[in-house]
């Protein structure tokens, strides 16, 4: 019941915002900002960049709100803009982060149960591994793993076929497993023994 009311409320807010009502748009921003910032953060790995790109996302959304069609989810529509904003920003920032993955791996050439990483190191390694993925695969992975969207929702959000979602997701996970195999997988197995 609460969900139904929320959908009705959102539809009404969208209509009011499409008529130029800023307060209605601000309410929509409050509802979706967390998801949008999370997606961008997972895409680019920097809090400040995520804040800036999220602002850009909502400004773009406001400017193109008339082209939004209620038959698609507003969330998916915003995520599409967010992913594009994140990709643009990474292109401008010359993507410095991903190479750091190799640096971190080189510090410890012989991983094993004795070389347990600290939580911070582990998180950093994971994040860098995610950031080193190709943009298209990373976007699909982020929407699936962190936003828990279905394949169809991801396909709608990124405007790609469901089959492409599946292949990109398979590719992203395979790459990540390969990148993290030496470090984290062995460590996890050691922790479970």
């Amino acid at each position, binding site marked *: 019941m609460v969900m139904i009311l929320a959908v009705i409320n959102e539809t009404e807010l969208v209509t009011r915002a499409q008529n130029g009502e800023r307060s209605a748009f601000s309410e929509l921003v409050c509802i979706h900002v967390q998801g949008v910032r999370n997606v961008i953060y997972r895409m680019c790995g920097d809090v400040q960049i995520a804040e800036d790109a999220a602002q850009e996302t909502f400004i773009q959304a406001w400017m193109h709100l008339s082209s939004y069609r209620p038959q698609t989810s507003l969330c998916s529509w915003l995520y599409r803009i967010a992913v594009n904003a994140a990709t643009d920003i990474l292109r401008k920032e010359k993507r410095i982060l991903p190479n750091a993955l190799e640096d971190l791996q080189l510090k410890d050439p012989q991983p094993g149960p004795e070389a347990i990483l600290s939580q911070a190191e582990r998180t950093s390694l994971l994040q860098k591994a995610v950031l080193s993925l190709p943009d298209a695969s990373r976007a699909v992975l982020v929407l699936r793993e*962190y936003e828990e969207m279905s394949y169809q929702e991801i396909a709608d959000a990124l405007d790609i076929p469901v089959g492409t979602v599946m292949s990109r997701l398979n590719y992203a996970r395979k790459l990540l497993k390969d990148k993290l195999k030496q470090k984290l997988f062995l460590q996890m197995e050691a922790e479970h023994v």
Partner: protein
Amino acid sequence: MSKHVTDWLNAYLDGELHGSQLHHAEAHLAECQVCEAELRSLERLSSLLHEISAPEFTSPERFAAQVNLRLPRQQTAISGKKILEIGWWMVPVGLLGVWIFIGTAFVLSDILSAANNFGLLSGISNWLSFGSSNGIYLSSTLGQAGLLSGNSLNWAEATETFTRMSLPQISLQISIALLYLSWIAIWWARHTRHQRQQHGQLLEG
């Protein structure tokens, strides 16, 4: 043992397999250690990825206020849509206006024609009442040529008068009625589609 289901494991993990594919994958996983191990590694990867926690951002309200300050003053794209929407609702009003105008014009024309026949508008009838003062062209020409006479000439004159005076009026009114009915049909289709979309959204919600 059936063929490995490695290609389906991601979809299986994400709950995207259904029906026979799901049964097949489950049956295979129950007996294949290779695919089972692959599935476990995918699960480990997923749990690892969730170790990256989301950072602290500014509050949504503050963020919304910052965005609000940067929003352009006008949504130029909306004005076009609004104009289209207003135009759409003006269609039946316009059709009604045209119908009233044409009806009035024909009634006035008939009144002037009748007045002319009674000789009340002898001086100005030629330019006020179109059609009626011009006489009957074809039938009278045929009568003068001796091709029509008597009853057939009267029928031809009556038919020509009807064709020239009443037929345009009837045709125009039918055209307006058809346009109006088409507008109602399109409105109904749009209305039904909109209701279906809202219903779909509620169900998805």
